[in-house]
């Protein structure tokens, strides 16, 4: 089906797409190499990590370019009206599938799978004994589209005849298909490969300086590699089972890295909290995937699940009720992994890890996994939550609450990393909100742009802390740093502006697209009318600018409040910052709206490139359905209003601090401000500084309650009820045994037994004797009892 054989000459799928497994495999290999040999090397393992991630990055870039070329080629073919070349034997019906609402060609996923194992009913059909590593024989490269099932079936019967041979042996023989492991290459995964490997590479380089001299330098790099590998493994998942594996591996790596300095209890507490909170969400993941497995006729295949989800309500589709349950369960997983309210509390605590790890967690790995999963299984959420034509749904609401809730908390932090952490919570809320309102591309685009500016900001914060003797306290130890560290300042500034959505930096484009996607602003269209998410999104736009202004002021302006002179960081720290700031400045142009491009007189093909490259083909299949997928239209007035909101809010905060500075250059807050004077505000402030009291609820009530009273009660029951029953029964039987022994056994059986038996009754003196006595006793009793009971059975029936 597809893009098939005739099109991109897919007979030979691009080498990189078939071998994209190398991208996660390289860092995985590096993990083991560093672990076993790292300490003996001159750079103590860092060189292996950098080399392998660098290589993975190279491959990812290669994959990205191959992918883009492929899409661009097919698009130019389309414009040349050589349309027939796209479809197999020119069947007209297929053109529809190949085009989205604006006629653009979308990339079909290229799935390469090998059999992992088979379970459940392949007794006679799958007899071939197969070591799972023997890939060659079963290796199938089917370039299938998650489009319409019927056509796919028709298709495999003729035009891909030779290909279907392999396919058939692997699949059609057994009634329960083998469970596969493989790679899924499409725009979304290629985009993530690029982002993950790039950010990871920069973090590796940065870390060589930042954690230099650390007591566990080698282990740190080993886990950095494993973390990267796990995330890449998850990104490339072709089945939900594989996704679960990658998902959890990411979690455990974050556990190891957050708790890197485990000598101190707060750090290991934070690691535990991260892991346990994620486990709570994982309940949803396990159940949701279970529901989908059975709903999709016992299949873990993401392709099949998506196909059947699209057909929901029709023949061969998944029941809508099931989809809703599955989508809600998976949302729980997203809430924990991607830090959505109310399971976000682990994320700010995760700052206990080394700063480069925070950058990696917050920008490229771990937290975006949830967002990525929504995108990967988008049809499930689309149908399950009824995204189209609605005013609100669970996803959009969770995203909206998170984005504002996280943003508010960012205002009351003294710790620069915590501000950024809450900002991540807020921005993740933005992405989830985007996907919730049906703005798929906008959500993914925001994930993409956010990765660069947030990584830039975190690494910048690390650089600042490096200069300020490892403090992160903005109020106590920073201020006026722009003079001392100009490079860090400049890059941090760019990152902040991008985050605040100031044009023309990256965040502006993605944020604007999300607001348009809510479908509320006149003329934007969209997939529904999501008022609440829109209003919350607007609020967040203003808040983000405000709290970032606060951070910038407290850190880089005013007077330096720390001790000892700060200094600019070395080049291994500043170069990654410059690269990221550069990207944060320009990547927004990848998805310029068409009207903008036309107004500027740029080539038409420069518009919405990101959309063309990343948006999956599956999206297009919504077209033509009653609840189909449409792209929101950009709106200049909306962009202006949103920007003005941000600039206004940021300006207000700036004015506040300028006034304060004029009054007292050392001050960081008014001692007699509103907070001191107005009780309700003070209460609100306390509510925020206590993080909505959620931590009190979780650790104080739920965790402590389970570990304390509940567990103790259960154990008390165990020791004093269950166990006592046994002890009493035991004592009773010993009593009965002695009774029998004394009055029956001794009376009837000869003296030889008698003698050894007397030893038995004097329990404890001689261990051997006691034991053999007991054993003999019981053997006798048991067989007597057994015979008796068996006799009862015989009589009874």
């Amino acid at each position, binding site marked *: 089906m597809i893009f098939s054989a005739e099109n991109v000459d897919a007979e030979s799928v691009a080498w990189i797409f078939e071998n994209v497994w190398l991208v996660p495999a390289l860092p995985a290999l590096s993990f083991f190499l560093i672990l076993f040999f790292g300490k003996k090397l001159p750079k103590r393992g860092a060189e292996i990590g950098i080399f392998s991630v660098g290589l993975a990055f190279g491959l990812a870039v290669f994959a990205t370019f191959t992918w883009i070329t492929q899409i661009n080629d097919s698009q130019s073919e389309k414009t040349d009206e050589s349309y027939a070349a796209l479809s197999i034997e020119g069947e007209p019906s297929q053109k529809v599938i190949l085009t989205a609402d604006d006629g653009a060609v979308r990339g079909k996923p290229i799935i390469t799978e090998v*059999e*992992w*194992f*088979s*379970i*459940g*009913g*392949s*007794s006679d059909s799958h007899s*071939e*004994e*197969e*070591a*799972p590593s023997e890939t060659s024989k079963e290796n199938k490269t089917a370039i299938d589209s998650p489009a319409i099932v019927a056509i796919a079936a028709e298709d495999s019967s003729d035009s891909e005849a030779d290909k279907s041979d392999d396919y058939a042996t692997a699949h059609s023989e057994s009634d329960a298909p083998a469970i596969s492991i493989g790679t899924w290459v499409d725009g979304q995964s290629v985009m993530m490969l690029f982002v993950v490997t790039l950010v990871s590479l920069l973090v590796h380089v940065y870390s060589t300086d930042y954690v230099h001299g650390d007591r566990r330098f080698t282990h740190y790099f080993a886990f950095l590699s494993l973390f990267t590998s796990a995330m890449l493994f998850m990104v490339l998942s072709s089945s939900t089972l594989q996704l*679960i*594996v990658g*998902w*959890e*591996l990411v979690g*455990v790596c974050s*556990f190891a890295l957050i*708790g890197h300095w*485990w*000598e*101190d*209890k707060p750090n*290991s*507490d934070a690691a*535990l909290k991260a*892991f*346990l909170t994620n*486990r*709570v969400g*994982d*309940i949803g993941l*396990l*159940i949701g995937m*279970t529901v989908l497995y*059975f709903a999709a006729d016992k299949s873990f295949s993401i392709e099949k699940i998506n196909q059947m989800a699209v057909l929901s309500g029709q023949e061969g589709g998944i029941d809508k009720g099931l989809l809703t349950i599955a989508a809600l369960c998976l949302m729980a997983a997203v809430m924990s992994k991607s830090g959505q309210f109310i399971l976000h509390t682990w994320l700010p605590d995760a700052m206990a890890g080394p700063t480069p790890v925070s950058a990696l967690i917050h920008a490229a790995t771990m937290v975006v996994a949830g967002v990525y999963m929504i995108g990967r299984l988008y049809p499930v959420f689309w149908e399950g939550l009824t995204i189209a034509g609605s005013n609100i749904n669970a996803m959009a609401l969770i995203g909206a609450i998170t984005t504002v809730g996280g943003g508010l908390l960012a205002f009351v932090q003294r710790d620069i990393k915590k501000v950024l952490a809450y900002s991540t919570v807020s921005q993740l809320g933005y992405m989830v909100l985007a996907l919730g309102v049906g703005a798929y591309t906008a959500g993914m685009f925001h994930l993409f742009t956010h990765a660069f500016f947030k990584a830039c900001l975190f690494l910048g914060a690390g650089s600042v802390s490096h200069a300020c003797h490892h403090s992160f306290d903005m109020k106590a130890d920073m201020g006026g740093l722009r003079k001392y560290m100009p490079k860090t300042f400049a890059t941090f500034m760019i990152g902040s502006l991008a985050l605040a959505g100031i044009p023309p930096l990256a965040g502006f484009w993605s944020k604007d697209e999300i607001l348009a996607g809510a479908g509320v602003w006149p003329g934007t269209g969209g997939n529904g009318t999501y008022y609440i998410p829109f209003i919350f999104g607007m609020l967040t736009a203003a808040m983000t600018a405000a709290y970032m202004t606060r951070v910038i002021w407290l850190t880089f302006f005013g007077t330096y409040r720390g001790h000892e002179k700060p200094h600019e960081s070395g080049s291994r720290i500043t170069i990654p910052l410059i690269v990221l700031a550069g990207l944060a400045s320009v990547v927004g142009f990848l998805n310029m709206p068409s009207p903008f491009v036309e107004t500027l007189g740029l080539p038409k093909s420069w518009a919405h490139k990101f959309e063309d490259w990343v948006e999956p083909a599956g999206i297009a299949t919504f077209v033509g359905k009653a609840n189909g997928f449409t792209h929101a239209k950009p709106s200049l007035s909306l962009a202006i209003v949103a920007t003005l909101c941000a600039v206004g809010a940021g300006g207000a905060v700036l004015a506040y601090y300028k006034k304060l500075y004029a009054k007292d250059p050392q001050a960081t807050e008014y001692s007699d401000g509103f907070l001191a004077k107005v009780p309700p505000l003070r209460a609100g402030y306390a509510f925020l500084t206590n993080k909505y009291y959620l931590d009190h609820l979780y650790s104080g009530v739920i965790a402590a309650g*389970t*570990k304390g009273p*509940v*567990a103790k009660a*259960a*154990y008390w029951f*165990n020791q004093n009820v*269950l166990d006592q029953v*046994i002890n009493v029964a*035991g004592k009773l039987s010993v009593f009965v045994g002695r009774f029998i022994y004394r009055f029956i056994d001794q009376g009837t059986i000869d003296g030889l037994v008698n003698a050894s038996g007397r030893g038995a009754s004097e329990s404890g003196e001689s*261990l051997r004797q006691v*034991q053999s006595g*007991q054993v003999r006793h*019981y053997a006798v009793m*048991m067989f007597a009892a*057994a015979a008796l*009971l*068996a006799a009862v*059975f*015989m009589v009874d*029936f």
Partner: protein
Amino acid sequence: MTEFLDTWGITAMVFVPLLGVALMMAMPKTMEPAIKGVALATSLASAFFGVLLLTNFNYDDSASMQFVQDVSWIEIINTRYNVGIDGISLPLIALTLLVTPLVIIYSWNHIPKPGNAKAFLILMLILHTGMLGTFVAKDLILFFVFFEVVLLPMYFMIGVWGGPQRLYASIKFFLYTLFGSALMLVSFLALYWLTGSESFDIVKLGELVSTSDITHGTQVLLFGGMFMGFGIKVPMFPFHTWLPDAHTQAPTQGSVILAAVLLKLGTYGFIRIALPTLPEAAVTWAPWIGLLAVIGIIYGALGCLAQTDMKRLIAFSSVAHMGYVMLGISTLTDFGINAAIFGMVAHGLITGMLFFIAGSVKERYHTLEIKRLGGLLLQAPRMGWILGFATMASLGLPGLAGFWGEFPAILSAYNPAPGLSTGLFRGYMVVAALGTVLAAGYLLWLLQRTAFGKPSEEFADDPEIVDAVLSEWIAWVPFLILIVVLGFFPGLIFDITDAPSTAIGDMFKVLDK
């Protein structure tokens, strides 16, 4: 060669250890190194035959019994020496063949007090024969005999080489299990008489039950007897109270074998005997078994959270983990039974590993009290890492073996066999999924308190606290490797167990129609 294997292969594997026992008995106690050598060589000889069998096993036909030897044994009661291996028993046999030699290697310089390597290792080899015998028996009486043979050596191991409460623990272990097996024997005998069978062959009995006119009520009672025998061995809530005591008091080797193999005799019994012979009763019992299983999952986890002793905590975690295995079995589906067998092997490896570590910690710190420990990663970094690895495996981390016992069991509960209440089992599924959070809670808490942080003052400069030594490494590395390999290639077990599990699952599908 194949001819020999086909007839005498299993017998050789099972009884070779007894030859070693005879030899060791003739050796004086003082020849300790030689005795250890003989013990290891014997266990390896058994493993050698086992490997021969495993390599000659026809994996395309793992649903049927292979290498069957069926000769007359005790003619008067029609019981036969009838043994064979199929895809259900094979993974467990492999596990046993692996664990015993490794435990013997570990014993090289870890003979617990009061010493006497000769007696200790003799018991170990008898235990080995008993365990293997249970897994190969196809005859109910033969099964019963092996099932009981296992009991004695373990009883002595705990009673002689155990901790301060060894007497109480060993007698409790012995009597409790024996109580269950008495009822089990009743069921066996009644089954034999009621069907009018001419042998104790499990398969034949199953066939006879399906054609006989034994009432449903009777079948349910018979199943109840087996349930007591197997359920106590597993152990299932509320019959688990012997386990924490036995584990805590047993010497390290005993705990490892107990966790790795002995508990599986119960779950194996369910799959091998109870389900196939009494399928209709199984359907009646399944909701209750499932209920006890999920109670066990939560209850075991809560029990763990309340512990102050590392070894006792690990013991309680077995209750929770075996709950997943039993949940899988109670669904009566191919998926569930596959998961159960995988879960048995995974639990054996992982919990066995945890007990090894606990034993070595005890040896160095002379205590297992959690609040006195801490900073293992600083004092013995490699052991600390292994502990971390084993806890991660134990909490069911994907990519390690534990996951494949846990997730498929949860998954199978979504869609139990026909005739079982789907709603009920979905409820179990949710509870079982909740158990994964608690599991992470107690295991990570254990890890944090023992491995992280700094060592307490009393142990800070203790010269006895050293990192893992050679005999420990040899014993542990195979465990560690297998945990990873099975985690990434679950097909290594699922491909073997799938066919026989499907056969059992199909039986329950047909039953409904």
